[in-house]
């Protein structure tokens, strides 16, 4: 399977944020997108998922050659796209289990028994070191920043998408939690042959993963692409390296 971003130009609130981004993510690949603040990383993530405030003016997004540009977010999710939100919303009154059950039921006709479902959630929570009590609460309501990020990864593990877009999964996490999240994501990718686009500012999370492709975005354009060695360059020189060509 393949998720292809072709010459994507995107406006939000009348301002062009993405100015011709192209990417190709195949099953099982781990891509990393890095770039300074305001360069368009989150806009790209939201556009792929179909955020109503992002307007594609030029270009397209394709899953296995078929355009998803006109599809609503839930249809994109059905094609296997999953976005881990940088700032997940809090919904008081919506139980985590009820939410996961509703989402799972919407994505697949395959029914899973309550006991098996709860077992799956329990195992996922244990792997992510999520306190059992959190699963019994309202979705993200009153969670710490780190707990919210882990809850996003738990959702990924339960919903089993084919393409995962991770928008700064490491921000707000302590050192141990970064390792737990990274290992869970990489493990998920390998076991499910999922394509992953990881957006991050920091190289620490990449120590626990095996990224194959690094992309650097600046001012709405991909300015450098390469393998893992590019991370060291970014660490050394910052995002100015893009100007080198």
């Amino acid at each position: 399977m393949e998720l292809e971003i072709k010459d994507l130009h995107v406006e939000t609130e009348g301002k062009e944020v993405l100015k011709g981004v192209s990417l190709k993510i195949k099953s099982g690949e781990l891509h990393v997108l890095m770039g300074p603040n305001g360069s368009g990383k989150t806009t790209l993530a939201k556009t792929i998922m179909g955020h109503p405030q992002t307007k594609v003016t030029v270009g397209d997004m394709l899953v296995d050659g078929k355009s998803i540009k006109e599809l609503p977010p839930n249809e994109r999710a059905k094609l296997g796209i999953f976005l881990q939100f940088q700032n997940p919303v809090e919904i008081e009154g919506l139980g985590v289990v009820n939410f996961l059950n509703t989402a799972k039921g919407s994505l697949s006709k395959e029914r899973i028994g309550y006991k098996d479902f709860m077992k799956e959630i329990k195992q996922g929570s244990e792997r992510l070191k999520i306190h059992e009590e959190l699963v019994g609460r309202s979705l993200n309501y009153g969670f710490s920043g780190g707990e919210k990020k882990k809850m996003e990864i738990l959702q990924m593990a339960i919903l089993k998408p084919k393409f995962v877009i991770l928008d700064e999964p490491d921000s707000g996490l302590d050192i141990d939690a970064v390792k737990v999240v990274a290992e869970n994501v990489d493990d998920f990718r390998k076991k499910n042959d999922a394509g992953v686009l990881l957006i991050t500012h920091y190289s620490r999370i990449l120590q626990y993963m095996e990224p194959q492709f690094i992309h650097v975005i600046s001012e709405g354009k991909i300015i450098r692409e390469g393998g893992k060695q590019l991370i060291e360059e970014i660490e050394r020189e910052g995002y100015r390296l893009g100007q080198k060509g």
Partner: protein
Amino acid sequence: MPGNKEFIEEAMRYYRELPLESGLYKKYSIEMPLDTPDPKGADADINAIAEEISSRMRIRFDAVVSSRSAVSTNQDIVVKKVEELDSAAINGKLFKSSEDKLAAFINSKARHFVIVNAKSGVDKKLNILFINDGNLPVQILVDAADNSRLEILEFYTSASKERSVVAPLHEIKTGKGAHVEVDMVHNENDKTYLVGLCKAIAGDRSRVKLNFVYSGAVATKSRNILDSNGEKNGVEVNEIVFGINDQKFDVSTFIANKKPFSSAMINSGAVLDGEAYCVMKGFAKVENGSKGAFSKITERGILLSMDSHIDALPDMSIDYSNEVKATHSAATSPIDQEALFYLTSRGIPDEAARKLFVTSFLARYLLNMDSGIAKELAMSIMLDKLERKVYGGKTEMTTKGIWMVANEK
């Protein structure tokens, strides 16, 4: 006593002159047709209706009260016709004619009294079914002795096909250390008007929690007065309104901290669709000498349509400002678009995501109920209303997995 017509006019005049119904708040007040005559020829088989509801909702009711009859099968609930009532039994009632003419009016019209006296130390859960097959003015008197614990579910439904008025008047008193929760779930039909009055006084170290669920009736007007009248006690009111079509709701609640370290809270929430209207008036007063008191009003609303409207009017009066915590807030908005995007991004279709958001909002308030059965009943009714866009009809007891969450409160 003046004649009926004069009494009604006097009551309504007095009512209109109350601070909430005049001046600044006049435009936020809705009129109720209190002079509605009893429908002629009402011949609903109350026993059959009660049995059917009990079986469908899987609730065993301890008492059934209708416009024309009242039966209790539980010795903890005494029902009396007004002519059977010993005046001593209602001596010391909290509402007095001189204080509130509307209460006096309902009092004078009430055909039945429902009396729950909990003796010291008892722990009871009681379910009462109210069926209006005509006008239903009724008084409910709850007296919880020291250290008693009462959980009362009241379910209101309609059997009348003509216009009628349901007017429950609650008077609740708690002794030291008592704990009383009354869950009032309203699902009257679109011919019914609801006028609710409630006054509660909480004694030392006692708790009074009143949960109002307004889903039925074409128009609702309620006024609740709760005094946190003992040291280290607490009163809490949770009001949830779900309105569709042209339903109207005028919900006023007063809370007062009168003693040190007392706590008083109002949580009001409304979800409106169609051309529904709701005004939430929450008033809190922290009286002199209420050292260490806690007072809070929270009013929240969600508008599902362009033509629905919510007025949220929290108000506080703090006479004692030392060592008191007092807050109030109000917010109304359409469904949060970011939340909707989040839910749809997980594969949930737009319409289902909107419903999930609404039920989550309703659940916030229902989670405050201690009574599992009341919570289940209220959510079933509102889920059915959300699905079918009707109210006051037959509802199955199903919440479709909404409580797949441990109660965090």
